[in-house]
């Protein structure tokens, strides 16, 4: 057999990306087509009505509802703060002795005043719901009242698994080699607000140190299953993640356990150390898979924003591959041949295999299902 399809994750120094940024409720789009935006820019927002707070003002002031009209200092629609005096009486004999006043319990707006019940309805400030651009880029499409499409050219890495929401920060390389385990002592205040890169592994107590120093995200080769459980508080049954509120985003590029980060991934992150980076840990491993993403935007011209058609990663003699299951998990090799007949492997399973060669010249064979293509 000449070639075969093989699954693989994208790791590239240049790709055209396209992201929809949509409001949960209809609102206002704040940018227009062709605008260049920064990741932290709000591109659309809507204002939700604030909470209504009923407040019995007549009672508080010690007057009847009918009398309230005389003492009230506010009118419907007026903006108020906690300092605003809602009503005050004139004190004993109108001389200001023992004068009492009632201040607003909340910031916001006066909604309604009832002279029948003596109650006022105060509304807390409107709550903005905003959508940010998430990645530096250009607005290429506006969906009126809903949101926009942002496109850019980026260096791009798909993680295999992640937790935590979208975040943006400067990329900081803490690992010297792709098989490094992240040392907590390397994390200090210089990491605050940054996205740090571990090598092969990061332990729970180091994640904790990172959180304390305000690290926004950690990119690591692997994480231990039990550390993940400690971090999120439960054991993951089906991998649908990304909305955990754990104070940090984590992206694994390889998997669970200590696994050397793929050299290509490591080199790419190292080359872009210091650059502004957008990441998220959203993962859904089911049909229509979603994987976490590491996006490092680059300068581009509008004419470059042409998405290439997806190509099928193909195995053939000469293809560079990475092994994604034991034995040799994580090692890089080159395909030397793809025998057509089913072959018995150590587990006695009859499978289609590939024959390959490691960089040191050692030869091996392995089920084709257990490798991924490294696209050059």
């Amino acid at each position, binding site marked *: *057999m000449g070639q*075969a*399809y*093989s*699954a693989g994750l*994208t790791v590239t120094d240049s790709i055209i990306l396209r992201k929809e940024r*949509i409001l*949960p*409720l209809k609102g206002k789009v704040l940018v227009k087509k062709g605008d260049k935006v920064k990741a932290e820019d709000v591109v659309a927002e*809507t204002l*939700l009505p604030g909470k209504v707070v009923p407040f019995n003002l007549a009672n508080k002031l010690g007057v009847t509802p009918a009398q309230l009209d005389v003492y009230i200092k506010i009118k419907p629609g007026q903006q108020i703060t906690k300092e605003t005096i809602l009503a005050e009486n004139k004190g004993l004999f109108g001389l200001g002795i023992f004068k009492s006043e009632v201040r607003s319990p909340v910031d916001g707006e006066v909604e309604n005043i009832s002279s029948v019940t003596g109650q006022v309805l105060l509304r807390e400030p409107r*709550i903005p*719901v905003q959508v940010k651009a998430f990645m530096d880029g250009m607005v290429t499409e506006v969906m009126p009242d809903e949101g926009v499409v942002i496109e850019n050219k980026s260096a791009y890495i798909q993680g*295999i*698994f992640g937790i935590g929401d979208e975040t943006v920060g400067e990329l900081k390389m803490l690992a010297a080699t792709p098989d490094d385990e992240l040392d907590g002592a390397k994390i200090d205040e210089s990491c605050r607000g940054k996205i740090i890169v571990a090598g092969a592994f990061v332990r729970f107590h180091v994640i904790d140190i990172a959180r304390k120093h305000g690290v926004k995200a950690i990119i690591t080769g*692997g994480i*231990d*299953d*039990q550390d993940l459980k400690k971090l999120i508080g439960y*054991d*993951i*049954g*089906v*991998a*649908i993640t*990304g*909305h955990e509120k754990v104070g940090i985003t984590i992206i694994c590029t390889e*998997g*669970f*356990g200590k696994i050397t980060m793929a050299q290509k991934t490591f080199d790419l992150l190292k080359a872009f150390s210091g650059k502004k980076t957008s990441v998220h840990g*959203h*993962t*859904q*491993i*089911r*049909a*229509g*898979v979603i*994987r976490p993403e590491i996006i490092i935007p680059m300068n581009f011209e509008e004419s470059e924003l042409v998405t290439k058609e*997806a*190509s*099928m990663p193909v195995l053939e003699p000469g293809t560079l591959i990475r092994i*994604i*299951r*034991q*034995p040799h998990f994580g090692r890089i090799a080159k395909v030397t041949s793809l025998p*057509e007949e089913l072959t*018995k*492997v*150590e*587990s*006695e*399973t*009859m*499978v*289609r295999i590939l024959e390959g060669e490691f960089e040191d010249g050692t030869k091996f064979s*392995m*089920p084709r*299902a*257990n490798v991924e293509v490294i696209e050059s």
Partner: protein
Amino acid sequence: MQYDEKRLTRIVATDCGSTTTKAILIEWVDGEYRQTIRGEAPTTVEAPLNDVTKGVINATQELEELARLKYKNPNIRFMENGKFVIPRKGDLGIDAYVSTSSAGGGLQMMVTGVVASMTGESAERAALGAGAIVMDLIASNDKRMNHEKIERIRQLRPDMILMAGGEDGGTIKHVVEMAELVSGADPKPRLGSSYKLPVIYAGNKEARQNIIDALGEKVDLIVTENIRPKLETENLGPARDKIHDLFMEHVMKQAPGYNKLMEWAMGPDLESVPIMPTPAAVGNIMQTIAKDEKIEVVGVDIGGATTDVFSVFTDEYVFNRTVSANLGMSYSISNVLASSGLDNIMRWVPFDIDESELRNMIKNKMIRPTTIPSLLEELVLEQAIAKEALRLAFEQHKQFASSLKGMQRQRDISEAFSQSTSGASIVNLMTLNLLVGSGGVLSHAPRRNQTVMMLIDAFLPEGVTRLAVDSIFMMPHLGVLSEICAKAATEVFRKDCMVYLGTCVAPVGKGKNGKPALYAKLELPDGKKFEEEIPFGEVRLIPLDEGKVAKATLKTFGGLVLDKDKNKELTIDLHGGKIGIVLDTRGRQPFVLPTEKAERIASLKKWMRELNAYPEHILV
């Protein structure tokens, strides 16, 4: 429309599973239909391909290559320019392409209710009872703001939403508010197909019209009975059944590129042949076996995301089918661990392994679902997990097959807060005649002995039960093929699909290790005899080929019995198979493994060695 060999000489059938797309070639050869070649490829439901037909092309490409090798004919081709050529013209093309699909994988739902701890929890129980994972429970009183709830619905991309809330005659306002939220989220099916998202309404019946007004246009709204008609009455059955049916008919078979797949599936007159959900196709086969042989059958199909169990019991051939939507060997493997617990998996492992290593291995399989175990140790671990997935799926099946559909269950106030089930299952292992296994881990186990071991350990058959396996996993294909050519499906099923493994004899009851449990005298057709008084806690394997019968005299000791009439002595014909007769004196009801680790490992090794399940070096 049915065709015969005049029109159908070469057929490609595929099953698009969540993990692997399996293609088989069925041909009219020397006056009969035979399954001749098999190919497979990873199912392509991830970017950049995200189109299930790419997996079909890859699996078919493998079929073509193997066909050229087999027939030494370099001109054989089934596809041209990435599409099937129908009808066949000599070496080029095929006469029909049919397919089943379960590529959509597991079922992840959201449920809504008015009060989280009341109707919300009832809805959650109904969803869990149907085998779904509940991604979130949204209730009027859950303290989140509405836009946060909407955001959540959109981000989680549920496959289905179950809306409950309000007693009959109770609150309408809050239930309608929930419907407005769902409407605001405007949820779309996660795979972006043309169908609308199924939303089941099982709340206050007085609010039905309001719900229809709020949601009728946007979603595929199904209205069913209130799951909580009164505070103290819980009626989960109708909602649970609806979830189950909708999942199988709509969600499970869906996948990116599904519309294209539908266009591809056609018979010789270019007429469309509907894609069948995998469990529907396998269910047809199981029912046919039961009726043809006039026997009681339990069948199982274990996949990457789901495990489907089928049973046909009683003289009326009552058929039950359950799809455990989140028990499987790849996408759902981590959920098997979460559901069964590590100890239950470890109890089947005949060697010491570092717990964290095993946990990480399971998670790695989940995130890279298409990989396969090439190391023996990993195979043993995956088969240990498979036993638990099968056990849990069978438990779910027994519960489902216990109550009549639509039956209401009255709960008192105190019970209303606790989850309990009732009703006797119609699944009776003592009367079961045949246990059939299908799915990758069972059909492709390197040794059929492993299949026998997994079936026995997971299902714990009682009395005398025949065991069989789908040879290379083709039951779904044959189930859908029968829609256009029952003759081909039947012939291939008998000749190439159904592999009888043998018979398991397992006395029911307690015993003490080492004490006599079963006297067995087997007269084999070649004149040889097997005779032994087998102690409790043992397994024996007596090889006997398929089609051969041993005359057996069986006698139990102590409280052990052999059949539903509690007979302690039987003279019976035992059927052979690829593996033979298994005499299992480890006890049933209860079946207990030694709790002490060293003793358990020693026992496992002894049984595995007796069954010849693994190479000797891993059992030393």
